[in-house]
């Protein structure tokens, strides 16, 4: 079952002297909810997602999963990256089974357990293939199988489809939410593609830059599966675009101003 995730007053600086990359982020994501995080490149989306995965510890505040503060990564809250990062010395099924092997299953048991998952993701004829011979989309499907194999409560996606061709991307944008909904997995996707956000999320969080903050929020109350041609889709898309522009030009500009004002007055 999906888990809740709360970000409690997270501020982060990569070094003590640096300006904060993230500032006072405080939000809560409900079990089974699907959330998209959008914002300009470099605003701290990946940083925040790494924290949710336990791969990075915030300098202030904390991340709680089901109310428990997390301090290290776990296969139960699992992250997928833009690059599939498969292990070329393992076959497709061994790659998919890796998390289960880390959890203590024998290779044979683990491989058997991921079998239906590979079937479901359309990799039935690729199980014994060397991963280096797969297309980008197929590799990302293996990475998805690898993430799902450990029965995660939370799936964290960091622009996972941005390097794929449009056809594969659209297919995965439909499949991943369907899988998460079916299994009750809480899904958080980082993207800079507004269409992707509307296609995959119940709720979109908009981040500003310097420092990274969550400045806007939009519910996407559309039925599943989402169709890009639907009127509702286009309306939400416009709405999101406007809000995003609003934060980008207005709010963020003002924030940058105050930031420089502060530093000037401090100096």
């Amino acid at each position, binding site marked *: 079952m999906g888990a809740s995730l709360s970000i409690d007053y997270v501020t982060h600086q990569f070094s003590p002297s640096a300006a904060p990359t993230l500032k006072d982020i405080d939000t809560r994501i409900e079990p089974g909810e699907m959330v998209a995080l959008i914002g300009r490149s470099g605003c701290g989306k990946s940083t925040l997602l790494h924290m949710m*995965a336990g791969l990075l510890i915030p300098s202030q505040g904390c991340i709680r999963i089901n109310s428990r503060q997390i301090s290290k990564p776990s*296969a139960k809250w699992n992250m997928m990256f833009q690059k599939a*990062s498969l292990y070329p*010395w393992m076959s497709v099924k061994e790659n998919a089974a*890796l998390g289960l092997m880390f959890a203590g299953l024998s290779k044979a048991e683990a491989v058997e357990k991921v079998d239906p998952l590979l079937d479901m993701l359309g990799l039935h004829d690729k199980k014994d293939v060397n991963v280096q011979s797969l297309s980008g989309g197929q590799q990302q499907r293996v990475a998805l199988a690898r993430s799902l194999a450990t029965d995660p409560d939370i799936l964290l996606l960091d622009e996972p489809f941005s390097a794929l061709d449009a056809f594969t991307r659209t297919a995965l944008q439909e499949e991943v939410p369907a899988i998460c909904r079916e299994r009750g997995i809480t899904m958080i996707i980082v993207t800079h593609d507004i269409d992707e956000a509307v296609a995959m999320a119940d709720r979109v969080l908009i981040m500003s830059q310097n420092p990274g903050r969550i400045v806007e929020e939009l519910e996407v109350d559309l039925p599943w599966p989402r169709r890009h041609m639907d009127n509702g889709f286009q309306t939400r898309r416009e709405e999101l675009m406007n809000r995003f522009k609003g934060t980008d030009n207005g709010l963020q500009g003002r924030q940058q101003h105050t930031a420089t004002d502060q530093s000037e007055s401090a100096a």
Partner: protein
Amino acid sequence: MSAGTTTSTSSAVSLFAPTKLVRLLSNLQYPAMGITGLLFLWWIGGLLIQNNENLSAFSAFAPAPAFQALYDLVTSGEIWAPITSSLYRILVGMTWGIAIGVPVGVTIGYIGVALKVANVPFQFLRMISPLAWMPIAVMAFETWDSAIIFLLVMATVWPIIFSTAHGVRRIDPNWFKVARNLGASGPQMLRRIILPAIMTDVMAGIRLAVGVAWVVLVPAEYLGVTSGLGYAINDARDTLSYDYLAAVVLVIGIIGYGLDSVCNLLIKRFNWHVE
């Protein structure tokens, strides 16, 4: 399905098909030319020695007597004892070289600064001929055998350390991140990620090390010990049996080539890079 039987018959047929045979022969064509050329030069050399009054005592170096001596050594079984001794020393030396070199290489590769710190001293030590350690080895070790093995270890650790460390440095950082994310423990990270990732580099280091060890072994066996191929060469010289000396040189070359080929096969076996 009948696919299994079809494949097996077709491959059995194709083994004898002219195209495969031709390809096999053409693959052997150039090595065969090289070997013939070498034998020819050797033969010329033998003739020159024979026709030179000052050198005629060494005329048994020529191919014909040498191959006769090799035949005698093999049929009498005399050659196996020195081969076994030498290979045993290589085996023990390589085992220590790997046992020390791989962990040290992984450590200094994993700790980025360590490689920078260790680079100059290691390059320095690497450039010292292992034979230069001989006096120290003789003092430090009770038996000649352990002294020789020490020299082999001194010869083999450096290439193994270096290629292992560079293998570790070349690991895609995302591989660590993904594995950590999937809940890998330290030992699991080592066994499932680091070691397979660096296997090709380790094997390349081992191949270099075997080459160096084999080259160092023969002169090392000139000293003290009464077994091994180096000793056999010295012994043949002392008894003026130059045909046997040449035969042992031949054996050294053949075994060296064999060791290198085995390493090369292992590299291919462990290589996961797509050609």
